[in-house]
């Protein structure tokens, strides 16, 4: 009985340890330093923000209410307008 209990505990311990070990392996490379990706202070580029908003808007009423969709559409217009103003011609 004692042996069974010890074996079960050891098994549970191993299973519980698996995600931690996987995270450790993933975190071995610092992608922020190496590839400028997944930095804690990363801010989306305007283009990335446009894509994210377009993806969410495409989900439509299946996911969002009409008011929420309008908010997302307004945000998309806002980002596009800002992108245009960055590239506005003139002196």
């Amino acid at each position, binding site marked *: 009985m004692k042996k069974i209990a010890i074996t079960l505990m050891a098994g549970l311990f191993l299973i519980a340890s698996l995600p931690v070990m996987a995270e450790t392996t993933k975190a071995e490379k610092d992608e922020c330093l190496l590839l400028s990706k997944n930095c804690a202070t990363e801010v989306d580029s305007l283009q990335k923000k446009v894509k994210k908003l377009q993806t969410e808007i495409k989900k439509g009423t299946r996911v969002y209410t009409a008011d929420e969709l309008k908010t997302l559409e307004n945000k998309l217009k806002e980002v596009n307008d800002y992108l245009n103003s960055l590239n506005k011609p003139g*002196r």
Partner: protein
Amino acid sequence: MKLRRKLPAVAAAVVLTAVGATSAMAVEHQFGGAFTTFWDLSNYNPSGDIKKDVPTSNYFEQRVRLGYTGKASNDLKLVTMFEFDYSFWGNSSYDGPIGRGQGGAIGADTGNLETKSLYLDWNIPSQKLNAKIGMQPFDDAFKGIFVGADMAGILLTHSYTNATASAGFFRWNDTGATAGKNTRDMFVLDGKYNVNDKTQIGAAYYFVNSDNISMINVTTPEDVTVHMLGVNGATKVGDLSVDGFLAYQFGEDNFTNVDRSAFAGNVGVSMPLGKGTCRSEFLYVSGDKDDSSKHSFYTPYSQKFAQYKLAESGFYNNEMVILGRDKNAMTNDNSIVYDVNNKNQGVIFGSLGYDYPLTSSLTGSVNAGFAAVAEDNSGNHKSDYLGTEGNLELVYKFNENLKLSARAAYVALGDYYDALDADDPYDVKLIVKYNF
């Protein structure tokens, strides 16, 4: 109160303070930027001269725009944008503090920061109202022929289900010894209505009151009132998209006592053709035979460039490079028809263009256009015809942030320039553009 009794109260206060601080400090930070550098080979830029035996120039020009938006919530944000230009590489270094467009020479170190926008963008959802307060970009509802510039003011926009209504006040200049006395102000009323998902109509009224403001290097101050009324619309019929406007100006030049009565009209169309898109624009703007403001269309000159009659407006829809404003031009910004006032002569402008996706990342465009003055105000020209432009553009999208492009343009000058026996102007640009 004993310390043991005080502790729960202190802890509660600390928690409440922390919650409050977290909510107040939750600001979304958005950064954006655009970097553009081009090499230009031209007998027209950067001088803008049209003459005989004009030399060929080649130069590099650079611009960076950086923007930061601090959003306390969806309904409250501060919008800022700054610009750094080198009007051409190699121009100067260790310059300043007035170093606009300077610092492109070895050593750099020049104060060349320009502030474009600094404004508060505030929504009041319960009132369906948006307020923009401060130095902000404003574009008219008439494809930019009247005004399109950064300006300080307050713009209020109320949203309805299928419409918006805006009212605004902008202070363009204040040049007198007493603040608020000699000012040039613009008042705006603008409405847009979505008839359905394919058709939009609009109407706008602008009022400019320029009260004896002084212009740099111009002896005569500007003292005018201008009322502008216009309607605009856009619709889609099958594959054909049509948009356009009609605008009328009236008012008085208080210096010359001349009453103004000017007119502008435009129609633009576009439709798919093969794999590409075909575009066309036609613009007519009235002018004066006697170089007065009687029938010339008022476009506001910036105080700084008034001596060159360079207005804070621009019509870019016809995709011209030399005949009309070039969308790629930065500090060195020249064109034969710089604004639709066109030195009080007005303009007749027509263009045809075609955009074609050559591959998933390479796009080609070809444009042709003609321009003539509506009225020749010197009388010394053989004809009203200014010229015909042809231009070609290739844009390669390296990735979603980086574009490489090449654009070449040539203008066959019309008989308006016959007496000058001038060389036909041309311009070739190789451009790198990075956006984030």
